[in-house]
């Protein structure tokens, strides 16, 4: 996988027409909210660009992110990611195994030091020296720190790499952390989601190859073009929310009428992602369109934010028990203080000295 020919040459070899390529560039420009004229600029740059080396490290993860990127109908925009880059190391996709696989990673790191893109999916366990996840006898922590040194930029793919994800959920037995918790001296872009939308990673790579820099990011390190708005903002069921029309169960009249799923636990209002516009499965639909609320998978701590089926106004902790305990303590305190007050009152009454006529005469 060391043929660093241009993308145009590679596509021609595979019989992909220039028309398809231009359509891809136009789609990328649209998704990233770039002006229409930039499509030709993307095409011109991408056609000439040498395919950069990419090392993909999979740590504490479920392979769902890789599945998301590869299990799509062909040919798609997502499949072109593998034409745009030279994927020199990827556990799941590479043919090599064992020492040969690790050798390929080390060779790529040496040959393209300071130039390769490092893609990471999965969180990194750091508790007990990081022993809870190892590859070829090396901890994920060790491997990440080494690979990050020579990387031009790091792309954290999926919520585990971006924010810690499921392994980071309470009680976090392995001490799982995100890439950005460990690496501070490299540009990091978070492509969150469980899994992330395939087109988003393609878009980010296309942007990087075209402009030589990472796109504008939000405060969570996510590309604004895809994570700039909430699911709720772009949801086709939004008018029902504004009208106060909510499905109460998954099979009531409201659900059949396609009303808002807010009361069934939809986290769309607090979730930034492009599902409502880019959609899934080749633009077929997204979860809300299938009748299930958004679970908020592209946001930090989404596993710890209460049940997926509890609406946003519902507390995430046991408020009733706290209130009951407080009521008992309050009642006991009031009775105790009240008793002390009464005692003082009685004592004052008993110790009162009676005023006599003689006392008045004395005045």
């Amino acid at each position, binding site marked *: 996988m060391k043929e660093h020919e241009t993308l145009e040459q590679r596509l021609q070899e595979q019989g992909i027409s220039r028309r398809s390529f231009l359509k891809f560039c136009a789609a990328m420009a649209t998704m990233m909210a770039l002006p229409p004229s930039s499509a030709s600029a993307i095409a011109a740059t991408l056609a000439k660009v040498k395919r950069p080396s990419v090392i993909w490290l999979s740590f504490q993860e479920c392979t769902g992110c890789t599945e998301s990127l590869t299990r799509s109908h062909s040919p798609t925009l997502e499949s072109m990611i593998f034409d745009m880059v030279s994927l020199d190391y990827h556990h799941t996709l590479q043919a090599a195994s064992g020492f040969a696989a690790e050798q390929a990673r080390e060779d790529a790191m040496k040959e393209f030091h300071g130039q390769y893109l490092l893609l990471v999916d999965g969180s990194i366990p750091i508790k007990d020296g990081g022993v809870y996840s190892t590859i070829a006898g090396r901890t994920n922590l060790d491997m990440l720190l080494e690979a990050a040194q020579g990387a031009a930029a790091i792309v954290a793919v999926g919520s585990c790499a971006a924010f810690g994800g499921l392994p980071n959920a309470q009680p976090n037995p392995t001490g799982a952390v995100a890439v950005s918790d460990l690496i501070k001296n490299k540009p990091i872009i978070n492509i969150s989601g469980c899994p992330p939308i395939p087109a988003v990673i393609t878009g980010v790579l296309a942007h990087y190859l075209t402009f030589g820099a990472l796109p504008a990011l939000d*405060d969570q390190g996510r590309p604004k073009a895809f994570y700039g708005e*909430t699911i*709720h903002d772009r949801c086709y069921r939004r008018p029902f929310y*504004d*009208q*106060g029309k*909510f499905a109460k169960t998954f099979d009531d009249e409201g659900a059949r009428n396609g009303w808002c799923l*807010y*009361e069934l636990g939809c986290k769309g*209002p*607090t979730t930034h992602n492009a599902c409502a516009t880019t959609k899934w499965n080749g633009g077929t639909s997204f979860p809300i369109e299938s009748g299930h609320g958004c679970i908020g998978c592209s*946001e*930090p*701590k*989404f596993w*710890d*934010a*209460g049940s997926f089926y*509890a*609406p*946003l*106004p*519902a*507390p*995430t*902790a*046991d*408020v*009733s028990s*706290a*209130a*009951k*305990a*407080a*009521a008992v*303590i*309050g*009642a006991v*305190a*009031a*009775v105790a*203080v*009240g008793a002390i*007050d*009464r005692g003082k009152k009685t004592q004052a009454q008993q110790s009162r000295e009676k005023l006599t006529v003689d006392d008045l005469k004395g005045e």
Partner: protein
Amino acid sequence: MEQELLLWVRGTGLQIAAAVFVFGMVYRMLHLLMLGRKMSLAAPRGSEWSGGLRTMWKRSFVSTKLSARGNFTVIAGFIFHIGFFITLFFLSQHIELFRAVLSLHWPAMPRGVIDISAVLAIGAMVALLVHRFVDPVKRLLSDYQDYLTWALSFLPLLTGFMLLREIGFEYITLLTLHIASVELLLVVAPFTKLAHMFSTFISRWYNGAVNGFKGINI
């Protein structure tokens, strides 16, 4: 950070606020009742209970002719309280909260009614504040607690309306601010004039009972 903040106000923050509110209110109301009244040795001329209950009911409909507070204060006060109750108890999102905490629920009012109630309540509160500044007697009678309790009651209404219509900030920011403002209200309420949300009926009963005992029918 935003998600962590929201998680805190929906979880630990709400637990603390609810605990302080319930503790404070139970303590203050029970302590108030335990103060008791001095036994009257006079022969009763009427029933304490009927007098007390009658006053609790009748004071809910203050006659502007008999009130020394004037039409403006009474009417604006009514609009605020009614608007506040409608938005608090009949917005579907609030009912979801009550369902989650108390396992009780009831039908919601249409969104249009909620919108109008919230706007009227907000308008009435602003008008009452302006009146408090402008009216010399009210200004003289007001202390910091009046302004504090005004602000604590106003913020949940304002942030709630902004949240419902997503005005000014993102949903998550407004939701966090709204819940935080309610928590602030809950924490402070038992220890300020806002405790009247419970004590008002106790004091009405007390006044009514005293009058009832003396046979005064008002």
